[in-house]
């Protein structure tokens, strides 16, 4: 039995996935997480440390890490890369002023060795706001179409209404499950 098979076996037993929520500050990461967990979203302050939530999703246990995105916190992001199965990149679809920053930070992540192989889901959040940028516009602004290093998908959504959040998580779990266990959920 090769080493690879052993690793696979172990993971199979655990059936855990580690999802890392990243993105600029104000994107809506914490709000999405609280929404997933049916918690109140009115009192959320910008994240100074990080939040962790564990969810059951089908046969899998998801460990979701939500890290603060303020500029002074971004140097700490690297501390959370190890063992990441998927990056969930959250974008404030109304933040036209910072799309360039957003693109730069995202592509910086994609070149990290420790994130190689991780699936990438981009949430184009805040679609409930009438004039938010669409998924297509954000794909273009973030240059997603040129990403070859990672499996990716963009999912327009709203953390406030809850719309399409689960669709995005579903895609992510399927994609990771396929890669790790060679199975569909």
């Amino acid at each position, binding site marked *: 039995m090769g080493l690879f098979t052993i690793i696979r076996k172990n993971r199979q037993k655990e059936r855990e996935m580690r999802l890392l929520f990243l993105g600029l*500050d*104000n994107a809506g990461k914490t709000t999405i997480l609280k*929404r997933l967990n*049916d918690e109140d*979203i*009115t*009192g*959320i*302050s*910008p994240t*100074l*440390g*990080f939040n*962790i939530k564990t969810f059951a999703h089908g046969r899998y246990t998801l460990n979701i890490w939500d890290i603060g995105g*303020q*500029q*002074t*916190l971004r140097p*700490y992001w*690297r*501390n*959370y890369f190890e063992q990441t199965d998927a990056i969930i990149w959250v974008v404030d679809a*109304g*933040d*036209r*002023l*910072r799309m360039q920053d957003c693109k730069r930070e995202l592509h910086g992540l994609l070149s990290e060795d420790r994130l190689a192989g991780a699936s990438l889901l981009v949430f184009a959040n*805040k679609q*409930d*706001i*009438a*004039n*938010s*940028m*669409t*998924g*297509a*516009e954000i*794909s273009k602004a973030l240059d997603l*179409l040129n990403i070859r290093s990672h499996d990716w*998908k*963009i*999912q*327009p959504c*709203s953390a*406030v*209404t*809850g*719309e*399409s*959040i*689960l*669709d995005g998580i*579903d*895609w992510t779990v399927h994609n990771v499950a396929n890669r790790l266990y060679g199975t569909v959920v």
Partner: protein
Amino acid sequence: MADTNRSLIEEFYASFNASRTDIASRLEVIGTAVSKSTEILDQLAVDVSKLRKELADATSFLPSYDQRQYELQVKSFEHSLEQLRVSAAPKPKFAFKRKAATPATNQTVSDAKKPGPATADLPSTASTIASNARALSNHTGQYLTSSSLPVSSSTAGSELTISDIDHCIVDLVSNQGEGSNAITAVHVKNVKRSVLLLPSMSGSAILHDVENTVLAIGCHQFRMHTSSHVDVYLSIPSNPIIEHCTHIRFTRYPTHLATSDSTAEASSTHLSVQDFSHIRATPSPNWKPLPEEAAIAEKTWPRALLRGDDDVESVLKRLLPPI
């Protein structure tokens, strides 16, 4: 490598535990005290934020389970402190509750969780819907009101971008448009020597490069970056954030302008500012409360902006914070 980490982990454990015991017992003492000295509370706040900073620095070597436990501990200290502060303050009752963010919030979560059909791949399907940006940009020496804004065609609230404004008075509170023009969130960049009077909104405000400006706004979250000499009149149910800022002063949003929810203003946490560039053991030197006597008198907003036949320049001279 593993060994170095182990000793780092142990060292951290020992020092964290020492601080934890210390802080916990001090919290207990002050918790039972009849009158709570703000000095002691301040010192506790300093020590808790120091612990928070040490934890952030240690995340590179701490195992994730440990990190989580430490994080929970720090959070619980922060929570206790907040409660103590509230009970110490001779203020109106403290509450984070605020009116439902948007009508959309009422949509049930179970609805949202319905396992709908996988959304079609977007790049092809959504490209036909052009999104319309709403912006107020490139103005100098002007008096701008809601009528200067492009009208939003939608009935849902919209996002507003304000950028490259110099020597202007922007008053989006007087003569507010119909509901169809409601603003949900603002993104602000590069505003100098101006007064921005913005309404209460359900979403967040994010600002960059604001200088020598007076800003009034009600919002769900507030983040200000790379700015200086700004007086902020704020109503907010969460902690306002500053980062890379200097000479910022905070005070409450003029009460009578708050159209929506008066209890939100009463319980506003506009002084619970967190300076992300100063997560350490001393109070941030980058902001302070705006002294009552330096504040624009509540009742004169928004008339204070244009009084009689003042021109924009003389109003600005009168209202802008000192440099």
